């Protein structure tokens, strides 16, 4: 993300009396700043993605595996349809062996997330790879000066320590954070061990601002997998059990990014450089002994990758016909190198066969331009275009020499535009069109086609009261190739074009200066274009609500607390089944007194046993029972109720 915001100059500023946040530039767009993040229950940065209306995160792996992201009728798997950047660096991994666009935020300490911008649709030029449905940008910074040490212990058999330092007199971009946490979780095969180090420096330089951020994170985790519904109903397993050999993994990811930017009245410019490396390994078994009654069906997926990128951005502002205009754009090059393999492993973890082995290199060249034309005081039109070209090379093994690589070039042109109308200071109309994309995916040693999406959305935001904001939007999206996970092969399979349409409503209120309330409802209807059948797993109804109290005087200290609830209505599953309702609510509360802060985070305050994910496929786990091929419902347990208590000292 360039230092200068790539947003249009407002056609006309809204009333200064309106206190509800209006940083949104499109239907459903939200910006969470520090005050809102403090009242958002979040054990990890991924939780902030839930601020996107209609987004549901499902965990069918342990703490360390990327979430399954379900949004606006998309089953975005582990990030394939949601472009996420951290400090402007793309975090989705192209052709990760476990999932195209795999989103792993392990190296990002939650305490460093300073700002989250969530943007539905793809009507902006700077939305990059995997932004077929939406884009999220995380900015990092440490809120408080000084040293803060926190110790946490949880009823989920967990513990954590964190040390955070921001030099006195320095901006939020100067920090050092070291943290570690481990736990056993509630139930079987849920243990984890995490460690993170993050450092940042920000200084004025050459008339602009230079910023360097380095992140390193490691996670080692077990994964409980999914359970057969008939085993649950018969009492053969408990909801928090796991079948033997259900799996686990580890992830190590490091990133360093350097940015130099200038933001002046007439122009803005930026240079971003980054390098990253990762080591990823996951073992999984969804089907037991269905394919191989002797060794079992477990596989080990390995993905070792290195990436580098450079981005130049700039913008020029001027007044044309007495209206503010901005012309902006950028160029970017990103290189990804990866070695990957998939091995069949037996119950002891020993490999006995290789299903996949290969190495690839991908260079992505992007250029974009946008024109923010303030046609009148009421109208803002921003057409833009992004062009992306790839040079891709793949070889059958990691030791292949240059001659062994199969190479090709491909590219895509992505027109985009957004329109803002402000007919009245308390009413704003939005409309947007954009073409998003997923880079070509490596499958079976061959790169496939670029997947594109066409997204049209429109809506209006109204402010019937200075402290109340309402947004209603409709959206339509067509995706050229839907990816669906096949549990039998443990891989994602292209399933043809799909389309989805829906509506969403978002209401936000600040009845008191310290109190904020919000609620959102999203309906999406997703179908395959060729057959008309529903896209499996894609959510239809998603409901969310939250309340937050910031910095409320309480006794001798100040209280900050937030409660968020989420409900996802039954989703279509393969074979005519539907998932059960998923309803959960999380709580965070912290009381600060002088240099001390005590608090609690509660997962799933409802205290119920609930199902998070549901799938339909065949499996055979008990060799003493006859082998069954019949696809049946498999479920993953929702986060159980657990409380984590912390004490933090600052000096």
């Amino acid at each position, binding site marked *: 993300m360039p230092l200068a915001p790539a947003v249009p100059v407002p056609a006309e500023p809204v009333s200064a009396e309106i206190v509800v946040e209006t940083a949104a530039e499109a239907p459903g767009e939200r910006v969470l700043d520090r005050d809102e993040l403090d009242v958002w229950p979040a054990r990890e940065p991924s939780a902030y993605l839930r601020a996107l209306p209609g987004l549901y995160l499902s965990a069918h792996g342990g703490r360390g595996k990327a979430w399954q992201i379900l949004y606006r009728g998309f089953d975005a798997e582990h990030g394939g349809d949601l472009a996420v950047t951290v400090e402007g660096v793309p975090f989705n991994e192209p052709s990760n062996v476990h999932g195209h666009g795999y989103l792993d935020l392990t190296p990002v300490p939650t305490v460093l997330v300073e700002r989250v911008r969530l943007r539905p649709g793809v009507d902006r030029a700077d939305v990059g790879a995997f932004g077929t449905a939406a884009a999220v940008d995380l900015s990092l910074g440490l809120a408080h000066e000084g040293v803060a040490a926190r110790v946490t212990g949880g009823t989920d058999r967990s513990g954590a320590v964190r040390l955070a330092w921001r030099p006195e007199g320095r901006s939020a971009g100067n920090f050092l954070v070291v943290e570690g946490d481990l736990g056993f979780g509630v139930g079987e095969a849920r243990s984890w061990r995490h460690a993170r180090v993050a450092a940042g420096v920000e200084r004025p330089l050459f008339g602009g601002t230079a910023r360097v951020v380095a992140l390193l994170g490691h996670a080692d985790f077990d994964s409980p997998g999914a359970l057969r519904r008939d085993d649950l109903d018969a009492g053969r397993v408990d909801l928090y059990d796991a079948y033997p050999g259900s799996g686990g993994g580890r992830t190590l990811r490091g990133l360093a990014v350097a940015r130099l930017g200038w933001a002046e009245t007439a122009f803005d410019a930026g240079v971003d450089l980054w390098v990253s490396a990762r080591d990823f390994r996951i073992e999984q078994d969804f089907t037991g002994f269905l394919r191989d009654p002797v060794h079992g069906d477990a596989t080990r997926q390995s993905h070792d990758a290195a990436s580098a990128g450079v981005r130049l951005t700039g913008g020029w502002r001027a007044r044309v016909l007495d209206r503010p205009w901005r012309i902006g754009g950028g160029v970017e090059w990103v290189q990804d190198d990866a070695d990957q393999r998939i091995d069949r492993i037996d119950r002891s973890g020993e490999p006995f066969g290789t299903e996949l082995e290969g190495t690839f290199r991908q260079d992505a060249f992007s250029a974009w331009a946008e024109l923010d034309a303030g046609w009148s005081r009421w109208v803002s039109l921003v057409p833009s275009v992004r062009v992306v070209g790839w040079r891709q090379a793949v070889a059958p093994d990691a030791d292949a020499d240059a001659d062994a690589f199969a190479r090709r070039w491909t590219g895509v042109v992505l027109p985009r535009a957004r329109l803002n109308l402000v007919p009245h200071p308390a009413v704003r109309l939005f409309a947007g069109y954009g073409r998003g994309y997923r880079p070509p995916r490596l499958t079976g040693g061959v790169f496939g086609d670029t997947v594109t999406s066409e997204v049209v959305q429109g809506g209006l935001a109204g402010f019937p009261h200075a402290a109340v904001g309402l947004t209603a939007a409709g959206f339509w999206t067509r995706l050229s190739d839907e990816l669906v996970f*096949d549990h039998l092969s443990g891989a994602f399979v*292209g399933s043809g074009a799909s389309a989805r349409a829906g509506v969403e409503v978002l209401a936000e209120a600040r009845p008191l200066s310290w109190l904020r309330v919000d609620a959102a409802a999203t309906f999406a209807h997703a179908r395959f274009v060729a057959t008309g059948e529903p896209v*499996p797993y894609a959510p239809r109804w998603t409901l969310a609500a939250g309340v937050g109290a910031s910095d409320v005087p309480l006794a001798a200290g100040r209280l900050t607390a937030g409660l968020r609830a989420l409900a996802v*209505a039954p*989703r279509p599953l393969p*074979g*005519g089944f539907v998932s059960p309702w998923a309803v959960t609510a999380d709580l965070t509360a912290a009381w600060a007194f002088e240099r001390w802060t005590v608090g609690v985070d509660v997962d799933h305050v409802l205290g119920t046993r609930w199902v998070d994910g549901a799938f339909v496929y065949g499996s055979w786990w008990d060799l003493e029972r006859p082998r069954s*091929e*019949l696809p049946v419902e498999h479920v993953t347990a929702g986060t159980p109720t657990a409380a984590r208590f912390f004490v933090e000292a600052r000096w």
Partner: protein
Amino acid sequence: MIVRLLPLLLLLACEDARRSTAVPLEVEPSVTASGPWSISAARFELRAVRYREPEPVALLDRLVPVARAHPGHAPDAGLVGEWLGPVDVDLLAGGDLGTATFHEGAVAAAEIDLAAVVVEGEAGDRPFRFEVAGPVTVLGSRIDVEVDADAPPTLALAVDLAAILSDLDPAAAPPEGTWTLADDPTYNTFVFGLVRGARWTWSAR
């Protein structure tokens, strides 16, 4: 308007899911004589029966209709019912096979896994005995039934031994009377007739 419609839309989102149900299975007694064939024993080990739907099921028009993960990829595509053995079946006596698990909806075909097939008796005045060690699979056994979890049917399997044997020439029986050689044309004809789906029929009540 949306607020007024919300409760209705939420209620519609609570449609019943496709359900699974247990369906009783039984085997009807087969004939003991057919033309020159007099059957004194017919038995086999029934290992599994798998039932498949005719095509993607379009259930009631509701907000949460049928979904398919991806057409035609998974080996279990279209599998809607299953009975798991093994159970020794006396085809002359018939019997109860317990229950199969079905998903609601239409069923069009069954695959039947067998082993240890023995059919013996007399052909004219000469004894005969067919032994098929197996495993063999009967493909394309047609069935036309709609399974409703509220009123599951009972399915009865009938094996047309008469038709299987009618393809054979009893005069071709070896002196010892037992056809077991895989390259014996009569034996092969028997096995071919045995695994023909048309010889295995289903009825529902």
